[in-house]
């Protein structure tokens, strides 16, 4: 997939990358690290690939379990055994900082992509039957029946979220209150809508207080069967 970029696509990418390297210090630094790494190990593709685009908020979420050494922002590691949560959406005309991809890895250690995401899905299914709920066809069920099932899902998912995440609202004010967005605000934390003109500080009404994670405590995924979202049950 990676090699499929045409000459024109690569030219456009190089053009965009030029300006990114000039304007975005982090992007430039990451490319530099990547180049150094490639120089040191010419035979091996670097594990880490450039910036994970706009970084999440500073105090963000650090998994307590050892995170997979480093994950590409938009992973596109080809052909690996079971890949249920296929992320990979490559080979489109380059949009954002999509730096040069390494040549096909010979045999990377087998590890499903999006392993932690998959594990979280497993937990939500186990505690709150979320996958069952979303996979079921709603037609034919009354609102009361759906509501009753939603209670099960709500109770379980609530417990799972409370167990594994510590979340807090980004804004403490009540929704509907008037708030001020200071200059230099983080666009990842505050989304402006409506009459977005002028320059900060902005005054506006808080429509959604937002959520951010203070901590994540996902349990370690089991060593085997990581692709299993819910085991089959057989009663003897």
């Amino acid at each position: 997939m990676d090699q499929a970029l045409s000459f024109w696509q690569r030219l456009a990418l190089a053009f965009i990358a030029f300006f990114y390297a000039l304007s975005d210090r982090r992007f430039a630094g990451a490319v530099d690290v990547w180049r150094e790494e490639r120089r040191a190990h010419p035979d091996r593709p670097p594990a880490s690939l450039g910036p994970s685009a706009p970084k999440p908020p500073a105090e963000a979420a650090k998994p307590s379990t050892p995170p997979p050494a480093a994950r590409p922002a938009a992973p596109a590691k080809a052909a690996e055994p079971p890949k249920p949560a296929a992320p990979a959406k490559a080979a489109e005309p380059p949009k954002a900082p999509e730096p040069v991809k390494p040549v096909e890895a010979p045999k990377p250690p087998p590890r499903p992509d999006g392993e932690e995401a998959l594990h979280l899905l497993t937990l939500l299914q186990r505690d709150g039957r979320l996958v069952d709920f979303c996979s079921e066809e709603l037609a034919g069920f009354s609102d009361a029946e759906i509501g009753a099932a939603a209670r099960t899902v709500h109770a379980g998912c609530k417990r799972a979220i409370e167990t594994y995440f510590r979340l807090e609202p980004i804004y403490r004010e009540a929704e509907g209150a008037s708030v001020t967005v200071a200059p230099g605000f983080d666009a990842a934390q505050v989304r402006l809508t409506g009459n977005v003109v002028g320059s900060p500080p902005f005054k506006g009404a808080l429509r959604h207080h937002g959520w951010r994670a203070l901590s994540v405590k996902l349990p370690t995924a089991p060593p085997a069967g990581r692709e299993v979202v819910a085991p089959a049950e057989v009663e003897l």
Partner: protein
Amino acid sequence: MKLAKYAVGIDLGTTNTALSFLPLGEEGAAPEVFGVPQLVHPGEVQPRPLLPSFLYRPHPTEFAKGALALPWDPEAADVVGELARGRGAETPVRLVSSAKSWLSHPGIDRRAAALPVGSPEEVPRISPLDASARTLGHLRAAWDAEVAKGDPALALANQEVTLTVPASFDAVARELTVEAARQAGLLELTLLEEPQAALYAWVEAMGDGWRKQVKPGDLILVCDVGGGTTDFSLIAVADRDGALALERVAVGDHILLGGDNMDLALAYALQRKLAEAGRQLDRWQLQALTHGARAAKEALFGAPALAASPVTVPGRGSSLMGGAIRTELTREELEGTLVDGFFPRVPASAKPASQRRTALTTLGLPYAADAAVTRHLADFLTRHRESLGEASAPGLKLAGRAFLHPTAILFNGGVMKARELAGRVVEVVSGWVEEEGGAAPRVLPGGDLDLAVAKGAAAYGRVRRGKGIRIRGGTARAYYVGFELAMPAVPGMAPPVEALCVAPMGMEEGTRADLPARELGLVVGEPARFRFFASSTRRQDQVGTVVEREAELEELAPIETTLPAGSGAAGQVVPVRLRAHVTEIGTLELEAVEQGGEAWKVEFNLREQVGA
């Protein structure tokens, strides 16, 4: 022991176990609860304030390799705690539960591998003693891994450990509890009655203010309804030389009745309702219904305005809505089943339906035949009124003609968290007392009713070092040895038995009873076995008192001793007397003393089944 850094309290419960600790070096430090790391799902270890007292023995193929690993034992093969309880609900043949109730069951050999009862043969068996030791062993390993981290000075075995037992545990069950703790590596520890621990927790939480809350003449009823058992105690407040003193004056019987019965009763009520509508439930669904009923109960108890709470049993297959069963728990059903079913308004003269004979249900636990907690309570207060006179409890003025009048109630146990249930107990007891012209008892404000016993036990560790008030009381029972009277054999008639008191009630820790006048002849080199009895109401009996009708007593496991050959020629009859000794840790020991003063230990014999 002297160097212990922490006072540790362990509440080894029928359904849940908790550990609390406080640093001994800090003045006035409050007890903290240890979050016990345990498997909550395969491969997931989380700390929880309660360790469910369940042991699950998985099939070798049941879990993936490493899914049962604990931080301190990567090769663990059995499961203790939340995962054990969860799995066991779906696969009951592999679950060992209520080990503590089995440990106090006089009808079985508690050292014999018998649990789980009635499971297929290939499931490995474990004795009630070993199962209890496993739970305690998990606590010790978890503490040593989390707190001590290899420092022997901080290891649990080297702390001032207090282990709680129900007040209703007799000498044999207490002895076995200590044996289980030793097996788990806790060699030095002290036993404490659970209701006393609850009161210590209250005193600890009140600080010095507790002295203002009670006055001499008060009689505190500790009403402890936990997951599996109900336990009553009465603690009197007395004036001893101008200072307030607390004296435990009565303990109740071992009643196997608790919150689990109540949740099950609610589930059955809902199941009946569903059956009327033509829905049949399998075991998994009944289990889910029990969970749902418990959640609905908590919702209704938590919000008095709510008239009903929905209960959903989700579809078991991947179709969540298709297979779902919906119902609701209404407030009338909740009150009819729980409040009126388990806490009915009964007169003070009520007696619980008589207990089934254990001999007939040897393979099952002797669950209470009567589910009404209030009837058991009425019986408890009435029985002890008869025996608690001025003669047997000097200095105490206890009110009540037909039954004892509690002036204050301290609740304990998860069940009593429900205000409706606690309120009903207060209402019923107040009704009884007011009928005799007394004043209604007040409620002593409690803390966290699930954890109070563990916290109180930790506080007791400090009390033992002389800081704070100590509840006195001594042993809660008098103990007797039975003699068969020599008389001509009559077919169909067991020879009459006389019981000789060897240990009066109220023996303090570290004391010895007097030598009874009566001598027994023991044959050197041959085991001698005696029937052994106890009573929690016969206060006046002193060492040497003879009870002619042993039916008034409760029979325990027999006792046995063998005089070694060195004490005389084999076959020779040596006259001995039995002497009781209450150890510092709170267990009862018996020894056979010969005239020269030499003594041999007398063991509790569990192999012989009582009444079988």
